[in-house]
């Protein structure tokens, strides 16, 4: 096959491209320039898309002996991921930008362009298994598993995707990179949100959304217990940094229960009020088989690296509803709910949707 390897400049995508070459594919490497004003060097282990990353990707392509180009996706990324991230927070939700980038950039804008240019598939260094049966499964490396942020992909997108790393641990990938002479073998992992280089999400949002002072209200008493400078700075389940003016009457810690953009109110309450058993979600995809007619018993995951809980899931064309078998705390609108079928050969992604209410 003629395949396009998305090369971030990191170790995973370099080894993924190497494996694609070894599998006999005709591989072309592409680095996505996502930042409008790329920084020259990585600061710490954060971020990506610096000039150094572009150079690292190019060097890896040299070592593999494959053509290499840089594609400018900065405008698309800004519109579809960064602006969306800010808008979601402004609407009182908690977005996952990596998921959105997979959905809109890597497996949409890039994949579509690749297909138009005559490529058959896109290869990435994501840690997830995608075998001959077409099912997306968790990586063998549970700590590095990225199936959650890939669960948003449709059947058509998965059919044009190759994830060569799903059957390897991160340690194996690093060792292989060193064996192959790839200089990125010991490059630190990237963390957090790539377009917020300093990791200060609140500052990033404050710069874009401005100050919007409002009230913090106790859910039980209805009393105003504090103030905030922007409801977007809070996430459901958050305990720290609430700066309440007075302690709750019961003396127990308060958590963010909900954010109401229309009144710019942050509602807080005790931990048990966070507990959720019924989750509704929108924009469903279902790739683990035919869409079921009735409820399906499965596991669901409600945030990246979050715990899984058993649930009965019902899905139709417009939405998804999950009845959790035990209550979960801190379910935030905007995050994805991903349904998995437990499987000894790797838990299978059944489908996903974006949480609207819990």
């Amino acid at each position: 096959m003629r395949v396009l390897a998305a090369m971030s400049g990191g170790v995973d995508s370099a080894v993924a491209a190497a494996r694609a070459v070894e599998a006999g594919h005709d591989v072309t490497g592409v680095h996505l320039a996502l930042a409008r004003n790329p920084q020259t060097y990585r600061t710490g282990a954060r971020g990506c898309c610096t000039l150094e990353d572009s150079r690292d990707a190019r060097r890896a392509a040299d070592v593999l002996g494959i053509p290499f180009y840089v594609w400018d996706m900065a405008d698309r990324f800004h519109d579809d991921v960064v602006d969306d991230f800010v808008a979601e927070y402004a609407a009182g939700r908690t977005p996952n930008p990596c998921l959105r980038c997979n959905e809109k950039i890597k497996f949409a804008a890039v994949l579509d362009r690749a297909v138009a240019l005559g490529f058959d598939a896109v290869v990435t260094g994501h840690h997830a298994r995608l075998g001959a049966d077409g099912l997306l499964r968790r990586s063998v490396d549970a700590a590095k598993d990225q199936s959650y942020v890939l669960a948003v992909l449709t059947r058509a997108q998965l059919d044009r995707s190759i994830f060569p790393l799903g059957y390897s641990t991160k340690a194996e990938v690093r060792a292989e990179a060193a064996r192959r002479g790839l200089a990125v073998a010991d490059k630190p992992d990237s963390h957090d949100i790539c377009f917020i280089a300093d990791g200060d999400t609140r500052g990033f949002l404050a710069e874009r959304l401005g100050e919007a002072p409002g009230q913090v209200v106790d859910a039980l008493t209805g009393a105003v217990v504090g103030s905030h400078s922007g409801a977007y700075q809070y996430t459901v389940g958050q305990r720290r940094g609430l700066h309440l003016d007075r302690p709750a009457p019961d003396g127990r810690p308060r958590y963010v229960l909900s954010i109401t953009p229309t009144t710019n109110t942050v509602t807080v309450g005790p931990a048990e009020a966070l507990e959720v058993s019924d989750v509704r979600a929108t924009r469903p995809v279902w790739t683990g088989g035919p869409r079921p007619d009735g409820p399906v018993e499965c596991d669901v995951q409600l945030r990246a690296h979050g715990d899984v809980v058993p649930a009965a899931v019902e899905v139709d064309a417009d939405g998804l509803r999950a009845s959790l078998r035990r209550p979960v705390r801190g379910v935030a609108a905007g995050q994805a709910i991903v349904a998995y079928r437990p499987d000894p050969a790797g838990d299978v992604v059944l489908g996903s949707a974006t949480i609207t209410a819990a």
Partner: protein
Amino acid sequence: MAYLDHAATTPMLDEALEAYVAVAREVGNASSLHAAGRRARRRVEESRERVAAALGARPSEVIFTGGGTESDNLAVKGVFWARRAARADRFRVVSSAVEHHAVLDAVDWLVEHEGAQAGWLPVDAAGRLDPARLRAELAEHGEHVAVVTAMWANNEVGTVQPVAELAAVAAEHGVPFHTDAIQAVGQVPVDFAASGVSALTVTGHKLGGPAGVGALLLGRDVAATPLLHGGGQERDVRSGTLDTAGIVAFAVAVESAVKGQQEYAARVAALRDELVERVRQAVPEVIFNGDPADRLPGNAHFSFPGCEGDALLLLLDAQGIACSTGSACSAGVAQPSHVLLAMGADDDRARSSLRFTLGHTSTDADVDALIAALPGAVERARRAAALRTPR
């Protein structure tokens, strides 16, 4: 492989490569006083005379440099500094909107860091400068102008500028005129003295010499403040140990390229015309950019409506065809050409452009290979471009 990117760099001429290897085997610093040093010095001075003779300059006007970018920087910054040092109210630099980045960015740097003022001369739709615009510029600002710089021929669209006329206008106002002739030497007749310019940039690897060596021809009465300080080589204007082997090979290449220019230009222009004609037949909606008559013999530059140049480049590259989209930023992202934009093209047309440049090793087979691959590549690139979200 069909190498259609000779304007980026062209293969070394056999005689230049042989001269390089022979001299590179010898020891000797041209600044040393012993026999080995004298031998190296003699080779450098012979080369200086050959370059001077080939380009209509005096040997003392040839300053060897590390290539085109250095020569351009030395001319723009060095002459600016020297002229302003002589009179503080000479703070203006006049240039054109279609210069190479080695000139553009040097001028911008002077504006940002040295308090210079820039006067940018526009070009017409063919990328051509109008001497009347320079005359108007100098009539208005002449006493404040430190230096005028305008290229002899454009590296992207191949348009040849009326350099002698521009130089004459500058001379009327007593302002030094520099020209970047990197793309011109060996392609069109270039004579330093006859052109009336005060300074001229030439580099080796565009005419069959090695990369990393070039020269600035600098009139004997034109002062330039050095960029590099050190041992005082090259009239005290360009310090640094002379690259004897590189300079010898450069001189051999300049001499060969200039001697063979007419014959070369006739052969390559005929091949280029065939390429243009066949591209037009294969892709009828193509737009041919640059001046149709006053252009470099090896240059064919097109816009492919509805395509993105970088997609075309990728597709042609996969078929073994090497061409160019213009410039890329430091991260490797293709940028819309400032030259096309200055010629009045919109962003889409600028991004849809490809440059094919022929040279001394080009043959019919290169053109055949391009024509075989081009229609399929254009069709695919169109499909890819159609996916772009309109904004």
